[in-house]
């Protein structure tokens, strides 16, 4: 008969540590013995979700190999060289990286997921640019991809934060949206006309700013005014 010195509960003979607090059971009169019958057998049933995901990922990759090979062979048969087929192959590589690769990771954190997606998109666009050419990549496509990725990570980080209140989350997301539209129009204008002239993004940004201001004021009011708070609680 041993007790936990920390919790005051009597412990089963098979308990080496107190299951409640983790403190080791020390009873000089009755040292822990391995022989004591345990309430549960020592072997556990393994529950792996990962096995299934890996199998799914493998099957999907195999399925992707078929169109990749057929496209390459078709292109080769045409004139004996690889030309147009590189584009669809790059697209399928993109699908592989974006969909199947994350399946193989155990528990990918969402920000890493977004980051990978952004990098993969950029890489895909780069391949397309190498094949097609043009001046759209460096000044427009890549900055746009980076912008979308950064905005997504920012929104995700603030939304999952446990410290931030709901109103703060709304305000930060709206501010991110504000910056997003302004930079978006800057990029578009720069690409189309080579100059930065802001028009519609101003209105969008202003309305975002106004809404976030309203949220800020309302949340302040609620914090002050007990009766409104009561009505809005839950």
């Amino acid at each position, binding site marked *: 008969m041993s007790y936990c010195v920390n*919790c005051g*509960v009597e*412990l089963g003979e098979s308990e080496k540590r107190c*299951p409640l607090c983790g403190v080791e059971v020390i009873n000089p009169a009755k040292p822990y013995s391995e022989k004591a019958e345990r309430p549960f*057998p*020592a*072997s*556990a*049933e393994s529950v792996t979700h990962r096995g*299934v995901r890996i199998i799914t990922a493998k099957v999907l990759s195999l399925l992707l190999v078929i169109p990749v090979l057929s496209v390459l062979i078709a292109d080769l048969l045409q004139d004996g060289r690889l030309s147009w087929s590189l584009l669809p192959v790059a697209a399928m590589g993109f699908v592989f990286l974006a969909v199947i690769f994350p399946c193989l990771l155990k528990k990918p954190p969402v920000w890493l997921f977004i980051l990978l997606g952004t990098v993969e998109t950029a890489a895909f666009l780069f391949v397309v640019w190498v094949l097609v050419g043009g001046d759209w990549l460096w000044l427009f496509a890549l900055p746009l991809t980076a912008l979308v990725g950064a905005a997504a990570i920012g929104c995700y980080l603030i939304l999952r934060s446990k410290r931030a209140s709901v109103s703060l989350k709304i305000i930060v997301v709206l501010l991110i949206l504000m910056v997003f539209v302004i930079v978006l129009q800057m990029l578009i204008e720069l690409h189309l006309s080579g100059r930065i002239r802001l028009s519609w993004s101003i209105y969008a940004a202003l309305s975002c700013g106004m809404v976030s201001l309203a949220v800020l004021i309302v949340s302040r009011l609620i914090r002050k005014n007990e009766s409104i708070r009561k009505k809005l609680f839950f």
Partner: protein
Amino acid sequence: MPLDNAAKIYPPAMTEGWNALFRVSVTLDEPIDRQVLKRALLKTVARFPNFAMRLRRGFFWYYLDRLDGAPEIQDDVQNPCARMRFRENGGFAFRVRCYNRRIAVEIFHAITDGSGGLSFLKTLTAEYISIRYGVTVPRSGDILDCSVPASEEELADGFLKHAGPKAVPETKRRAYHLNGTKDPDFLHVTTGILDAADIAARAKALGVTVTEYLTTVLLFAAADWKHVKHEPLQRRRPVKATVPVDLRRLFGCRTLRNFANYANVGLDTRLGEYGFEEAARIIHHQLRLGADPHLLAAKIASNVNIEKNVFMRLVPLFIKDPVMSLAYRIEGDRQSTTCLSNLGRVTLPPEMEAHVRRFDFMLGSLIENPIASAAVSYNGKLVINFTRTIKESFLERAFFTRLVKMGVKVFIESNQKDPEEI
């Protein structure tokens, strides 16, 4: 056979790694003879047709299809209630597991609820004891006579029969959520054994039932968790516990299938500190209100209405399935912090009492809430099992140490792994 009203949500909600399970087990005085158990199981399954069923996908709903025989008896494992794959189990939605002197039955919630599961286990034990020791065990109450077939009433869907005239949906408010380091692949079990008479006396002194007493201790433990985290007052949510209410006695129904509803009781910790006595009284009244048959009939009616809804009936399963799954995951059990399911006191005829030492009841992992607790008392012992899918044992510790401080003797055992093994 169609699934009963409460069971309809469980098949869509299940995933590759999770399904809603619970477990009842009995410990005898001698090691289990598996050959005898196999024979007893065959007879018992024949008496409980809802157990002899395979879950199948229809075009509009899941349904249950008749299945002969019984599942193979398995070795018990360290982590009970791990997801059940029906394919590995001969198609059955329940499994029987043996460990030394213990027979455990783990049941998918779509076939029955805790009371139905206990009735199955008691009947199985009665069959086992009568074959093993050659005694005649009298059958009464929920120990069923396996020589007669199941009646129509026992297989009826009690929800359809007892739905009230007016549907009143529950108002759901979100409750405080317990957070911890997730460990979803291993169900940690902490068992506390208390003196049933002592707890009953303590509850009686406060004018409450044992369930109400335990629920109060549990809510205090959950509220302690909250204090540790130092939530600011304006963002505190109430701590609430889901307490299943067995509808069989309330409605005079003898169904073997699901027939339970829930009362959601709680304390609003924004209102300041509660004393234990006043909290116990509040929980007592909340549970009484929750067990009002008229209110329950109205709640049942609103659940039955969902099933009878034309839209729900006409939409094919392959669309309904993901939608219901998502709805369950979003709604889940967010309106409660944890759960306490008490099966109450088990009484057995003396022929069985001579061989039965202990009963256990535990819940598998819930969808959102990381900790659940379940209790059953027998032979003067109240056994309460905490099952959790997080690493932190804070809630059990707060629960049992509070009891210790009040002068209750607590005995603890667990399925924890040795640190060296990890």
